[in-house]
């Protein structure tokens, strides 16, 4: 236990050191408004990465999150545009994500298929479905009474704190509780640690798998709602490539892709590292080509440092 704590601490220290350096270079970086800005931008990736953490802890992977995000966002926008109230549209979009995710889980567990290929296939299919369904055009959410709550979700404030930040804090606390204090949470770790042994202990590993992919799908849908709300419009291509950022956040947070070890706290730090990095590079007006170079190097550096501490 102690070991993990130190390493958590280390990536956090890395994040802090990096932030201090950026703050020296650019005085705007450490302002309250920019910090809220970073947190709000990070919320999308952090939400997806939370779901991804569940999946990766079992030794799986979910490449379809970006497409689920796009799909559920489009579903929500479509409903709002046709006059359905937010109070219906939001849960429906979440359930769509949950169901699609559970479907991934069923294919993987009952079909005994490799997660990578299943979610690669559903990623492609869902993106196709979204494009068919939206005809390749963005769908506006409208600005009528029925979409007020929806708009608030991405753009509103509670006590001066943007709603997406509240969402990610709540998500984090719930995930932390589930992973450390509940049976299903522990089974997630067990499954990732040794599937055979978990099965022999009488645990339905199929159910655990379906659970984690369903969670991942629902989290992706939640991210889709936030993005769609922020843009007041659902983009048919929204979320493409987000899976990689989410996986990067999870791994930067010290979770092993082999499953069985990792923490949700780590994932949050991982997501923050990526968020701060993106923001800092933009603030310092680094050209986008060099941004790619820098981003890749920092990720490498972060995992190397993390390893050294183990």
């Amino acid at each position: 236990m102690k070991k993990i704590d130190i390493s958590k601490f280390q990536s956090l220290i890395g994040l802090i050191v990096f932030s201090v350096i950026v703050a020296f270079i650019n005085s705007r970086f450490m302002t309250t408004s920019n910090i809220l800005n970073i947190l709000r931008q990070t919320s999308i990736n952090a939400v997806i990465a939370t779901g991804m953490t569940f999946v990766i802890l079992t030794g799986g992977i979910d490449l379809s999150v970006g497409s689920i995000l796009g799909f559920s966002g489009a579903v929500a926008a479509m409903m709002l545009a046709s006059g359905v109230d937010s109070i219906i549209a939001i849960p429906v979009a979440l359930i769509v994500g949950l169901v699609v995710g559970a479907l991934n889980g069923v294919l993987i567990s009952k079909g005994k298929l490799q997660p990578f290929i299943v979610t690669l296939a559903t990623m492609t299919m869902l993106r196709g479905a979204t494009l068919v369904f939206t005809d390749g055009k963005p769908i506006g959410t409208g600005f009528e009474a029925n979409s007020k709550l929806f708009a608030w979700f991405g753009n509103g404030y509670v006590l001066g704190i943007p709603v997406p930040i509240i969402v990610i804090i709540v998500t984090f606390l719930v995930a932390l509780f589930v992973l450390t204090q509940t049976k299903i949470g522990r089974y997630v770790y067990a499954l990732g640690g040794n599937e055979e042994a978990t099965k022999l202990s009488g645990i339905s590993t199929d159910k655990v798998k379906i659970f984690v992919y369903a969670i991942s799908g629902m989290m992706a849908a939640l991210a889709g709602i936030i993005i769609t709300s922020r843009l007041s419009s659902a983009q048919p291509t929204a979320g493409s490539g987000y899976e990689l950022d989410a996986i990067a956040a999870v791994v930067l947070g010290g979770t092993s892709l082999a499953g069985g070890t990792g923490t949700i706290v780590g994932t949050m730090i991982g997501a923050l590292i990526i968020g701060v990095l993106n923001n800092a590079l933009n603030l310092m007006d680094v050209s986008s080509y060099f941004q790619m170079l820098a981003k890749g190097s920092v990720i490498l550096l972060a995992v190397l440092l993390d390893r050294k501490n183990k």
Partner: protein
Amino acid sequence: QSQPAATEEPAAEEAAGAAKIGLVVSTLNNPFFVSLKEGAEQKAKDMGMELVVLDSQNDPAQELANVEDLLTQGVSLILINPTDSDAVGNAIIAANNKNVPVVTLDRGANQGEVVSHIASDNVAGGVMAGEHIVSLLGGKGKVVELEGIAGTSAARDRGQGFNDAIAGTEIEVVAKQVADFDRTQGLSVMENILQAQPEIDAVFAHNDEMALGAQKAIEASGREIIIVGFDATDDAVAAVKEGKMSATVAQQPSLIGELGVETAKKILDGESVEDFVPVDLQLVTE
């Protein structure tokens, strides 16, 4: 470089039914090209022509494969909207080798024989946007440029036109960032720029998707900034009407598609066509 004997004769079936022509689009993940495609499809339907549409997904290698597949299908003409003006060359040469005429849409080709090119002039569009900003700011101020996908000709040309237009004025580009022609990217990149730059007078985005994303960021920050986009998509035109954006350079993608099919018909009927068909650009302001 040797070529195999042409075993198939693609034009052989031409007389049998309605002429079949192909349209290879750089990507259908962008409403602009969706409009272009729809214009072409509508026109083809009206004229009783069969139109096969293939999507290159912004990948020139896929584009080449698409052209090869069309040639195999035996289309009698190919309309192509290149992913890149250089990379499309061999695809066009492949069509040339099979004597299938080629018309380029929206973006040109630097190699191969093209019967006709139908497009708006992106450099000119960039200039329009630049001049609009120059006149609104009175030739002085700080602007941000949101760039399209790195390496695409549209991004290059619009950037060039824009920078040409502001050259020699006291307008300074304080930040220049790529946001991939994408609305979500436009939002977060602009948010970050807003944090970094205390003073911004105007934003020029290489397309409307990015402009609309940036508009959201600016709205949330409560600052007053002139926004100029490109494409005049429905959303953007609405935003201009509401005063949320200052202007957008209207291309007429649907018209580009329609003209493409019309030109194709003329070529197949043996009529002569212009080698460049310019499509008007317009600055849409409120």
